[in-house]
């Protein structure tokens, strides 16, 4: 490390402490995790198109800043609930990418033993309580996790990710009301990426900002208008997490962001031509924005390049691990339905 960089880092770290926001190390950590998501999903999409990965694949490319900014506001043992577009969430909370990639490849070594796949890429060891692919269904689960944590006296906060589409589900409204009347330590984080499959939020949501819906439940809200900015998401989420941990109840955080890819990748045709809207958002790539910001702060790319090389290696290792792993046996289809194994009356296993 050059002397200049060293001084710059100390200066910057102190400045950040003064601002009670992020240290330079946290910026680097944020960049590392965001880049992991970017590379993980980019390679997954490529290999999905080659037929190496079965099933549907929904990527969060373009949303990396809000995923990582929110996850980094949590403690390691806090809980998190995801959805169908959730490769990024476990990576954002620092999960090992090997079992995640192996799960996409439907292998026995996958995080879910090959039974869940892309839409259920949930790593419980880092506090995940599921990534559920029925839109809106994770919200009541998050409320229950917060209730359970309170009743067991654990003091853990639950962060629930969901999209603009989910905010129109009944489950959203029931969950917010329950969390409010029971004053639970839960943060509802709406990743408003503008689209629910082919339905634009502008046509589907009755309010200008989904955060406005918090008022109906006497709930605090946070609106992050620039969800491509890692720090903005972190600050808003951290405030909500701290409020929850202090016993002061839930918050609805809305983050405006955008998904760069189609609803699901490799569907064979474009569902909606998003035209100039997409072009404009592509100019605001969150990974690139953070890279430029750090580079401006530090004035030296050495550490950034180290991170980039590290991520390349990690992704290659994850892919190799996945491809070299075995598929599950047919017999494994009878495990994990109940605590006891299901009887195979048909002799398949």
């Amino acid at each position: 490390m050059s002397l200049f960089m060293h001084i710059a880092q100390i200066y910057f770290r102190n400045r950040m402490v003064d601002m009670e926001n992020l240290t330079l190390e946290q910026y680097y950590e944020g960049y590392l995790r965001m880049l992991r998501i970017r590379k993980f999903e980019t390679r997954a999409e490529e290999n999905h198109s080659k037929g190496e990965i079965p099933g549907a694949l929904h990527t969060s490319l373009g949303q990396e800043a809000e995923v990582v900014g929110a996850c980094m506001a949590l403690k390691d043992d806090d809980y998190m609930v995801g959805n169908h577009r959730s490769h990024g969430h476990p990576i954002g909370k620092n999960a090992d990418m090997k079992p995640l990639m192996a799960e996409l490849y439907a292998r026995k070594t996958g995080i879910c033993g090959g039974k869940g796949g892309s839409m259920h890429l949930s790593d419980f060891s880092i506090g995940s309580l599921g990534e559920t692919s029925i839109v809106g269904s994770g919200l009541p689960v998050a409320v229950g996790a917060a209730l359970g944590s309170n009743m067991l006296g654990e003091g853990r906060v639950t962060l629930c990710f969901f999209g603009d589409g989910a905010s129109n589900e009944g489950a959203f409204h029931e969950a917010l009301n329950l969390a409010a009347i029971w004053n639970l330590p839960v943060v509802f984080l709406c990743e408003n990426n503008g689209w629910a499959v082919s339905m634009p939020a502008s046509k589907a949501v009755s309010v200008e900002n989904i955060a406005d819906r918090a008022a109906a439940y006497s709930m605090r809200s946070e609106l992050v208008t620039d969800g491509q900015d890692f720090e903005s998401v972190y600050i808003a989420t951290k405030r909500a997490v701290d409020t929850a941990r202090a016993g002061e109840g839930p918050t609805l955080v809305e983050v405006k962001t955008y998904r760069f890819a189609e609803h699901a990748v490799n569907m064979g045709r474009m569902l909606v031509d998003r035209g100039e809207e997409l072009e404009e958002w592509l100019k605001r790539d969150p990974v690139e924005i953070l890279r430029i910001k750090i580079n401006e702060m530090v004035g030296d790319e050495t550490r950034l390049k180290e991170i980039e090389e590290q991520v390349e290696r990690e992704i290659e290792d994850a892919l190799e691990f996945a491809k070299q792993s075995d598929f599950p046996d047919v017999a494994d289809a009878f495990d994990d339905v109940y605590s006891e194994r299901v009887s195979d009356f048909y002799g398949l296993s």
Partner: protein
Amino acid sequence: MARISFIESIRQAQYEELARDPKVFLMGEDLVANVFGTTTGLIEEFGTDRVRDTPLSENGFVGAAAGASMVGARPIVDLTITSFVYVAMDQVCSIIAKSKYIYGGQVKLPLVLRMCMFYGNSNAAQHSDRNYPMFMGMPGLKIIIPSNPYDMKGLLKTAIRDDDPVMSFEDGTLWSQKGEVPEGEDHLIPLGLADIKREGTDATVVAVAGGVPLALKAAEELSKDGFSIEVVDPRTLVPLDRDTIIRSVSKTGRVVVVDPAHQSCSAASEISAIIAEEAFESLKAPILRVTTPDTHLPFFPNGEKALLPSKHRIVSALKRLLN
């Protein structure tokens, strides 16, 4: 052993398990008001955190039970009338039944969904469901369906201690029925163990829930004509004790299956299919089902009474097999 009602057996099971394990809690609508009598004395003992009234948000609080169970609590959800589970179907079928599986066994969901089947009392079709068969087709859910206070208490206590989600279908026509029931922690009945309620040699009646006392009355009536009827109560539909059913049918060669649910895809249909596949050579006569026809239960009492299984219909079916 004390002689207590079906309702009281539910109350005792809940009381004892709340007292035994601090992770157990109960939630649902109107529990503090104790509408059905299953929470008498529970609020005073355990408080309103552990005996928790909920708003009318079935999908919300059933999902909350799922989340609480994932982090180590053991919720009992009182959904009151079984028709209300439809409002929570997303959570029951997509979260509760499937989470253990889709996450490859990383998590368990030790929770109980309690539901009363409120039929036979002119409450019209929306409040009179006997809907357990639809959940037999959803792997991941265990189903208990007790027919007397002894079984109700023993099965519910086991269900609360089980590490998997269990649905408890409680037959409202049995609420006031009384029977001998042990007090204390040790009264546990394993899931998946049928009970032979009456031994016999000429024909078998496999009956569930409110069908069991009707089958026992039918067997008693036919005994006057010299027929010996065996009555088998599976007690749990998932897991289902196939062996006890097959053993009984292999012995008698004749079987009537009694089930208060609608006939198509009923528990009786599944049990009949199992018997046909596994004990066909033993059968001396066709398998007959006594169920509710595939129409709704009407409000008018004479219509509702005629559609539901009765002692008379079971006796008629048995006579058809025995003659």
